């Protein structure tokens, strides 16, 4: 089972590991000229060409049949871009659903490694439960708008790409609790900002009930963020022998 980071002679990645060979590489790089001149801007020029031609990642699904209640809610949005709200709700839904899985992995790692204070497994299990509840909360919000909570929105898709590395780190048996805490912090920071935005969005769009529910979720997310950040700092300082 893996231990906190240690120092060893085994790391082979840097040039100091083999100074004579590295010097030969450096000499070669200086002696042989690049096959094309320029400062590397060609790469971004090519990128720009493709940006101009690109199609969007995808679209937001049109709500199916609007039932009475949904019609009333939609009317409240008259003149506003409902698709932005649906996209952002879809993004939060997907994030909370994946977030629940992140906690599953993290809890299992902490239990396997017999984590001690400051980390509390009970608290982690409560956070995990809250992520799952937040997922359902957003699903309900989407349903009141007549939107299909099972469809994947562009925001959901892109934010999943962004956080795919978090899942890779958490599901890797080799990563330490400390390393896992760092990526959990990464997720909670974004999550927190996401809820903050949702509260504002619902509020500005006149969806008061929704804004109220979202504020409750945001309060819980504030606690997630605060705890995870504290644990991360304390664990690292403890490991460094600073506390």
């Amino acid at each position, binding site marked *: 089972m893996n231990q906190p980071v240690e120092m060893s002679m*085994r790391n*082979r990645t840097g040039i100091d590991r083999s100074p004579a060979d590295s010097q030969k590489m450096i000499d070669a*790089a200086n002696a*042989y000229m*690049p096959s094309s001149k320029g400062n590397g801007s060609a790469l971004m020029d090519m990128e720009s060409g493709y940006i101009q031609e690109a199609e969007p990642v995808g679209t937001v699904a049109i709500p199916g049949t609007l039932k009475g209640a949904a019609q009333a809610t939609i009317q409240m949005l008259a003149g506003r871009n409902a698709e932005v709200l649906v996209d952002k709700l879809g993004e939060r839904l997907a994030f909370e659903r994946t977030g629940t899985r992140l906690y599953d992995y993290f809890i299992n790692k902490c239990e396997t490694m017999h984590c001690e204070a400051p980390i509390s497994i009970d608290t982690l299990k409560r956070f995990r439960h809250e992520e799952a509840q937040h997922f359902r909360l957003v699903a309900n919000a989407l349903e009141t708008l007549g939107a299909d909570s099972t469809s994947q929105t562009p925001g959901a898709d892109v934010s999943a790409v962004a956080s795919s590395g978090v899942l890779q780190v958490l599901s890797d048996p080799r990563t330490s609790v400390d390393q896992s805490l760092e990526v959990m912090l990464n997720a909670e920071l974004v999550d927190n900002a996401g809820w903050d935005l949702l509260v504002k969005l619902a509020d500005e769009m006149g969806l008061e009930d929704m804004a109220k529910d979202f504020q409750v979720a945001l309060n819980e997310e504030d606690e997630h963020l605060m705890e995870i950040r504290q644990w991360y700092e304390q664990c690292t300082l403890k490991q460094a022998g600073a506390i």
Partner: protein
Amino acid sequence: MSVNLFDSKGVSLDKQRMTWKDMVQPPISKLDDEAFTRVRIILTNGLEVEALRFQHLCARMNKDLQVPLAKVRRVEQHQQTTINWLISSDHSPLETTIAYEQVAVEVTAAVAQTEPDPYLAQVYRFGLLEDFDHLYRYSALLDRLEGKDANNILQSHTDIIPGRPTIDEHRAPENDLREHYDRATADTISKLHATTIMAAEYQTHDYYANIGPTYADPVARQLYAEIASIEEQHVTQYESIIDPSETWLEKWLIHEATEVYNYYSCVEQETNPRIKAIWERFLDYELGHFAYVSELFKQYERRDPAEIISQTLPDPMPFESNRDFVRQTLNQEVDMRTSGTQFVDKAQEDQASLDYRQHVNSGGSPSESVAEGYQWMPGTELNRKVA
């Protein structure tokens, strides 16, 4: 240790059984394991994939061999999994790509120096300078896309400088074919070399073809498209040096001998004891395959396998840096081109290749764009630009 192919029976085929736990072992450390451990993993993975590929083609053409082929193939499949799953998940596809080109450079250079047939040695040197250039282009991409230093993977064994420019490697198909060795007179080592390098190039092609579209960046997508096309040319080249008049069983026997030879080379040089145990196990498995196919060969062809493969294996393939040899080849042969199966100077290159190249590059050259003005520096080019 020297290996006698015909006396060492290895593990018999029916005892070559594996569990999912055997196949999925802890991976290597990207940071702490030797670059050449990763080189050996990639090389042998290529051979296992080639074993499956060849044995499937063979099965399509030989009804009588279908059962024996299916039996051996099951083991090859599980060997392939065991080996490829040793690459740890923190390798980005681009970092793994750097390692693939390091395999192409260092293994081809080793082969070029020990190959007894001068024409074949020339073929390897020719291909070497092209993969050497790929390493430089991909290193530029790694630096400029991911902000990483390719030398974290290469561990100072392989230079990052232009080779034969990738933009000039695009040739008309007929100029990628080479003369083949003669099955009756070629040295055993020549046969083992050809199958090894062909396998390595084939898996490189397939790897690029599969991971190319996983990139978001259009420059990366184009660069993989371009280099995958060269790897396809390389497969064409290396496939053509093998005598096409070898029988199916003869080829099968050579494939198994090639696997034996490579695992033997790995066993002799591996420094990670856990990985070495895998090489030892698979060396025994391949000796079992060789013995099994030898029996089939005697049964169906009524010939002695020793007519095809020498009794004792050649010296192990050296896994080491070939910096001086590569540099010397670069200085002497970078301007070499082809005309049909012959190597010629730049000025005599076949017109069909010039025409093809002109067209394929007419919408821009990804390999030139990505490496525009690129000079490797320890810690990435930002170390130079910011300093």
